[in-house]
């Protein structure tokens, strides 16, 4: 939220996110030059984040939260391409909807479009390596990736507002207890949606990243 992150921390997270935005720009340019089919993947990935991040869903805890929608893009165009997509979505929400905040953009990009996708990506790779079924791997990766985004937000807030008695860890746990409980059911929903959409796209012959091509049993 705008104004709730101190200026020094806002700058810190923005500076940390900048190199990722550059990597993301390079990565997207390379993919699009490689094959025009990836333009479609790019459109689908960006659209998916656009739709899901706008969805404010009620959870069992009596409070609402947003989905992230970043895992589909992570497996279609790779985590290195995601930061720019996250940046566009967050900028749209910050400017037009006054939601999420402008000075907090860096911190939000870091949690939504950097940590979430990279955690989901490497977990997905690992789960496929240990021969877990493709759709189960994707479901777990989506769930953990979404949770990782909100755990990062909690850590960011804990760092900025350490608890007067318990310090950073106590504060981070307090923030986590707010986000995590609401987010767990929503992450499960997001897992189902991502697996379902990925299944449809696979049957439509969507190109996947080379690293996953070698593994025949994606789904």
């Amino acid at each position: 939220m705008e104004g709730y992150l101190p200026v020094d921390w806002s700058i810190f997270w923005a500076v940390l996110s900048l190199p990722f935005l550059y990597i993301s720009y390079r990565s997207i340019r390379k993919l699009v030059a490689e094959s025009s089919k990836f333009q479609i993947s790019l459109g689908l990935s960006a659209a998916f984040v656009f739709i899901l991040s706008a969805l404010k869903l009620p959870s069992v805890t009596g409070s609402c939260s947003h989905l992230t929608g970043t895992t589909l893009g992570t497996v279609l165009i790779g985590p290195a391409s995601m930061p720019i997509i996250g940046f566009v979505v967050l900028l749209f929400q910050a400017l037009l909807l006054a939601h999420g905040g402008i000075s907090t953009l860096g911190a939000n990009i870091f949690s939504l479009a950097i940590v979430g996708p990279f955690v989901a990506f490497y977990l997905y790779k690992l789960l496929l390596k240990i021969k877990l079924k493709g759709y189960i791997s994707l479901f777990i990766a989506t769930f953990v990736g979404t949770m990782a985004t909100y755990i990062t937000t909690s850590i960011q807030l804990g760092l900025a507002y350490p608890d007067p008695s318990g310090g950073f860890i106590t504060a981070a746990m307090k923030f986590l207890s707010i986000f995590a409980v609401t987010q767990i059911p929503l992450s499960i929903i997001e897992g189902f949606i991502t697996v379902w959409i990925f299944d449809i796209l696979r049957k439509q012959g969507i190109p996947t990243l080379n690293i996953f091509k070698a593994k025949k049993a994606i789904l």
Partner: protein
Amino acid sequence: MSKKNIILLIAVGIIFILIPISAMYIDWGGGSDDAACVLIEQISPKAEYKPHINWGYEPTDKQETLLFVGQILIGLFIFGFSLYKLNKINSLKKKEKQI
């Protein structure tokens, strides 16, 4: 693409649009982000929380809902268009194989 999937996709798309609209009439509870702000004010109550960058604009609740619906619609449009293109490439390839 199978007809069943197309109908399902459209149905889910409509549900997605209806969710934010329903929040205008049903109270689903506050956002977890607002709850986090309350906690921040508890932990460090002395500080005053003002926006660092004042955009000078804050939509009303109704406008916010409509903008969220707009964001979903833009997303659905791009998604549908991309899926249509993918489907086209796919069916062209199938035809080539048959010939």
